[in-house]
């Protein structure tokens, strides 16, 4: 009996620890969700005490002044930064994974360095550059900065996918009358797509969530994280929690739906 119990524990303790850690990741989300239903005004202290339930904030998620503008601005910046980083990064990863050329080591270093540099250094040095060049800080300086720090992550993600790709598949396509362009569009690109999608998701979340670099290069523009930062100093409108919870639920569902064909195939 005791022996059986020990086996049972031995088989499951890793999963148990894993689930506890996962729980740890979810606790703050739970608090945010709870706060989004809390009946309290803008300048009420940010605590769960004297909790009263209300749907009001969910009915009007952009009800706080400036929050909607900041939110959509962040979405726009993240979309643009993702687009730019994915295009530039995918091109670079193809060069690195598929070609041999001089200067490869230097290129790899140039790609690695931004990942090894704290955001605060990147943000401050870019600020110094923009100031020296007399560039007006704002929307576009934020986009430029975001493309820069997302780029390396895109290259790493897409390159890993490309490296795992069997070169014979491309040869088979060529053998079956697909020229270089068709081979790329019909075989290489679809097969690398999961890597590109993952890179895009990563870029989008890095950009949407970025505060440190943005804080240096935003001028008077207020992105969503900056709005949250400002609010945390003055008083947090409950709508922030609504948006935080909604972002979580929506992205969770989007990724989950994307996984459904995957789950079904596994079962088959």
């Amino acid at each position, binding site marked *: 009996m005791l022996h059986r119990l020990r086996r049972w524990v031995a088989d499951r303790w890793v999963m148990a620890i894993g689930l506890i850690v996962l729980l740890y990741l979810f606790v703050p989300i739970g608090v945010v969700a709870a706060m989004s239903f809390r009946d309290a005004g803008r300048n009420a202290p940010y605590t769960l005490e004297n909790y009263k339930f209300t749907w009001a904030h969910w009915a009007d998620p952009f009800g706080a002044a400036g929050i909607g503008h900041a939110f959509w601005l962040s979405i726009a910046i993240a979309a643009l930064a993702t687009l730019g980083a994915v295009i530039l990064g995918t091109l670079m990863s193809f060069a690195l994974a598929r070609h041999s050329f001089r200067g490869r080591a230097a290129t790899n270093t140039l790609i690695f360095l931004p990942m090894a540099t704290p955001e605060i250094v990147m943000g401050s040095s870019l600020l110094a550059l923009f100031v020296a060049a007399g560039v007006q800080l704002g929307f576009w300086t934020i986009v430029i900065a975001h493309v820069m720090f997302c780029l390396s992550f895109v290259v790493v993600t897409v390159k890993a996918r490309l490296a795992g790709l*069997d070169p*014979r*598949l491309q*040869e*088979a*396509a*060529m*053998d*079956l*009358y*697909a*020229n270089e362009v*068709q081979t790329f569009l*019909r*075989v290489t690109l*679809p*097969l690398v797509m999961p890597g590109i999608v993952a890179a895009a998701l990563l870029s989008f979340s890095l950009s949407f969530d970025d505060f440190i670099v943005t804080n240096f290069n935003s001028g008077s523009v207020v992105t969503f994280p900056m709005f949250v930062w400002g609010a945390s100093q003055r008083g947090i409108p409950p709508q922030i929690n609504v948006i935080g919870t909604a972002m979580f639920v929506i992205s969770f569902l989007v990724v989950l739906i994307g996984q459904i064909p995957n789950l079904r*195939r596994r079962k*088959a």
Partner: protein
Amino acid sequence: MSEQRHGDSGADLNLVGVTKSFGAFTAVDDLSLTVPQGSFFALLGASGCGKTTTLRMIAGLEEPTAGRILLGDQDVTRLRPYKRPVNTVFQSYALFPHLNISDNVAFGLRRRGVKGVADQVERMLRLVDLESFGKRKPAQLSGGQQQRVALARALINHPQVLLLDEPLGALDLKLRRQMQVELKRIQTEVGITFVHVTHDQEEAMTMADTVAVMNAGKIEQLGSPVEMYDYPGTAFVANFLGQSNLFAGGVTGRSGDDVLVEAHGARFSLPATRARAADGSVWLGVRPEKMHLAAALDKVPAGHQSVTGIITDSSYVGVSTQYLVRPAWGDELTVFVPNSGVAAPLAVASEVTVHWRPEHAFLLSRPEGQTVAPVVDAEALA
């Protein structure tokens, strides 16, 4: 088959002095050969001898360092793979994992702008016995099924030449035999030139019109399976295709239509038509199944050649019994005796006389000083 072929027919595949070097290493060395249109050509050889490299050059996936590749009159040496009427069945199939079976099979036709391919795809899938699998993804098929899809995907294009790189390597013996029959049937039906790389000499001999044995980037010999087996051109081929007993000896002269040979102090003769060397050092070869055993010298039929020795081992393999016989000079001979029930089995350690008809022997030239026949490493054949 009623489908039209693309490209002109009557086009032999010609390799002229083709060489491929990777840096200092020469993988294919000044290789020349002709594969007649519509024939089944098998390429055999030990691992690493350059078979895949040769196929890749024919397909256009690798560019020859020197030499030319011709299809009929057309020089295709520098033509991009997608411009050649040549298709490949890859060793690992290389099915597109993101496309279903139908789309995989239709891939080549679509790239060439053929419209309404559904009928052809269906017919092709029926040919390889996979009608109901069109909607599945490659990962949902067994190894043998994937192999048939790879075949269908290449065949549907009616190439002038179909290249098969050990396509049956991953299959179990039964499925393999089944696929061999299938392949041969398809080849006869559609009349396409097949160039088939294999490690399995039995497979090569049963399927091919012409067999070529490659060694270290060169063709050792090429010919029909019967010719190659019955009268091999080199000691390497004699041991690569089946087994041979080879005696190291020297030509001592002629007597009428016969060549006289002395080996290990014994005298032998064989018809001059079976000799590839007229003088100097030679290998005298006899196939194990062409050798017979007699209990005593006086039981040897008249006109047979003979060697006396001791049986050192016998193994029963069902259809025959394989004996190892050690003659006076040591190197054991292999003798296959059919278990036809005529003669009683012989005991190990008994003395026997090995004998054969002179016209069953063959004579090959032997480089001076070579006393051990070049054997193929068993690993390569496995």
